[in-house]
């Protein structure tokens, strides 16, 4: 069996174990290894040329049974029964439908109960499992690492390669341990952990590495929280992020549509238990974060590493030593229209976006709803809530979250990537400022000229209530003062 671990092997990390279990052949003389891919997720933006390449070469999809497609990046989040207005979007989606039909790939189209953001759909179906390899033509594939899977984004020619061969030639990654010890205070979430990690190691700090998140604060997180953290590994430049599977993981997977059953389940769990990094295994780099000291976090700039605690002020570029970072900070402040020294809590927003593969799962929606329940949104602030998948939307409605959201004055939308990247009509207008639970605050990411502050669902909710960047802590203080 590939999956067997042997007593004679030296201590290995989680990432190394998963890698070794997927070696089809070992590269010699500096050539890459050939790695087997267990699960290939496909969406409309990065797949058309890959399918076209197969067609031209007369090649089939080798394993349609390890491949699944969904429509997410371009899909509208209102009026989903009408034809898609934007021509490029419509062409991409129609092309995906044709390709999946022709090559026998399972597709969840707009309107289907399993449609949604590709990284929400895989885990939800129980397809994302510990110890597997997962790829997708999308950088936030790192999300699936939360299950102890090796999951990473690939380019279109690699998509074609996986479709045709179910393998990828790859050079081994380096490993970095990110240890988060302690207990998060109420109001502090997984999103704050990962924003703090990226602020600490920088947007290039993870380059060439697989990050393994460890420590008591990570163990205490739910799967939804772990997915939020692994999702943003790519924003630290890393290829992938991973968390060793444990009872939280097994409980999450058990009973889902594609989870193993009966004897298979027992065999799988027995194997999954062997995956954790061995005592004595060494990482190429290590980083420590004190969970006790973390506060709600927010970005002030135009990359995810430009973040500080919400109780802080906008930093002064003059105090940044590295000349490149200083220049980047100056540019960012200009784009964001912020003055150094401004308390972050004084910054007023025009919009709040609650969604994206970082924070659109059911727990995220529950957290958001728990803060806004019985309240009204601030005047003049547009609040948009976009569930990660059609199933999450239905689940939320069964719990009455949609009612809380619409009573609050927010828009309750259909599933998709939406304003995370503004490929569909959900966009910021030039100059608009948004508190967003997504993962990228790049210039123009949410719409040309739009200004993004990355935040947790709790901060998004408190901000929607007060109209300025806020955390639930600020609401409590207000409540006590009254």
């Amino acid at each position: 069996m590939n999956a067997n671990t042997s007593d004679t092997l030296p201590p290995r990390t989680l990432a190394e174990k998963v890698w070794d279990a997927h070696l089809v052949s070992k590269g010699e003389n500096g050539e890459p290894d050939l790695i087997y891919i267990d699960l290939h997720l496909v969406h409309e933006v990065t797949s058309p040329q890959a399918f076209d390449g197969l067609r031209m070469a007369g090649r089939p999809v080798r394993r349609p049974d390890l491949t699944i497609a969904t429509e997410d990046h371009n899909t509208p989040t209102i009026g989903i029964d009408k034809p898609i207005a934007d021509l490029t979007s419509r062409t991409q989606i129609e092309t995906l439908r044709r390709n999946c039909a022709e090559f026998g790939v399972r597709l969840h189209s707009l309107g289907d109960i399993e449609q949604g953001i590709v990284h929400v759909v895989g885990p939800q179906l129980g397809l994302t499992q510990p110890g597997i390899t997962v790829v997708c033509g999308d950088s936030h594939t790192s999300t699936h690492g939360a299950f102890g899977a090796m999951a990473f984004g690939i380019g279109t020619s690699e998509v074609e390669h996986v479709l045709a061969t179910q393998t990828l030639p790859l050079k081994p990654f380096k490993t970095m341990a990110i240890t988060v010890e302690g207990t998060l205070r109420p109001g502090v979430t997984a999103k704050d952990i990962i924003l703090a990690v990226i602020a600490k190691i920088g947007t290039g700090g993870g380059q060439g590495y697989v990050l393994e998140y460890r420590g008591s604060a990570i163990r205490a997180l739910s799967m939804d929280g772990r997915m939020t953290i692994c999702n943003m590994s790519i924003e630290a430049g890393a290829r992938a992020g991973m968390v060793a599977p444990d009872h939280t993981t097994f409980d999450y997977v058990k009973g889902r549509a594609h989870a193993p059953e009966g004897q298979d389940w027992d065999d799988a769990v027995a194997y999954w238990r062997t995956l954790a990094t061995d005592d004595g295994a060494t990482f190429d780099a290590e980083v420590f974060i004190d969970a006790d000291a973390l506060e709600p976090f927010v970005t002030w700039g135009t990359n995810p590493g430009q973040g500080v605690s919400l109780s802080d002020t906008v930093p002064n570029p003059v105090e940044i030593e590295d000349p490149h970072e200083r220049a980047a900070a100056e540019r960012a402040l200009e784009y964001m229209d912020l003055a150094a020294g401004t308390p972050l809590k004084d910054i007023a927003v025009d919009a709040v976006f609650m969604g994206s593969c970082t924070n659109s799962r059911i727990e995220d929606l529950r957290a958001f709803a728990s803060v806004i329940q019985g309240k009204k949104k601030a005047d003049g602030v547009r609040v948009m809530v976009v569930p990660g998948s059609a199933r999450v939307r239905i689940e939320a409605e069964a719990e009455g979250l949609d009612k809380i959201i619409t009573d609050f004055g927010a828009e309750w939308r259909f599933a998709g990537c939406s304003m995370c990247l503004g490929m569909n009509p959900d966009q910021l207008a030039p100059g608009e400022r948004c508190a967003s639970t997504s993962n990228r605050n790049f210039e123009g990411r949410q719409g040309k000229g739009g200004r993004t502050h990355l935040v947790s669902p709790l901060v998004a909710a408190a901000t929607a209530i007060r109209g300025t960047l806020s955390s639930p802590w600020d609401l409590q203080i207000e409540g006590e003062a009254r």
Partner: protein
Amino acid sequence: MQKFEKVTGIAVPFRRSNVDTDQIIPAVYLKRVTKTGFEDALFAGWRQDPEFVLNRPEYQGARILITGPDFGTGSSREHAVWALRDFGFDVVLSPRFGDIFRGNSGKQGLLAGEVAEPDVEALWAIIEAQPGIELTVDLVERKVTAGSLSVPFEIDDYTRWRLIEGLDDIGLTLRDADRIDRFEQTRESWRPRTLPVKQS
């Protein structure tokens, strides 16, 4: 991919240097969903000009492009190679290429050979004296022949072997198909499958 040993065809003297991939194919063409049909996009910014060398009647049907240094620098778009292939080029010769472009070329059956700058000048001179003359590019011997002139070009051994064997990345991996088969036979039954669709 076609096996590639020797190409004989019309060559275009492309007297430009620092042609980046944005000039080879502008970004607006990247929205398409196909991998072919990019011939109209090749050098789109220059094609309006009737005097542009590719528009000249004597170079119609050309298979070989001979350019100045630093061809294919800039963005990594694979479309640049697709556009050149779709237009009909099998060979690009230049004193120096952008790294990613050169890598992408080898993967898609486009021979990107490095020819010393004086030799490029000499080839241009011959072609311009007899527009429409056919050149021969011999990958086995690594040389270009134009009339009585024969000059060497460089290409790394690995890429040359792949082109001669007609192997793209996928073809290369599929040479090991039996290894993939063997690996699949040992995969555990509990590993996830997307088909059949299970109801939850």
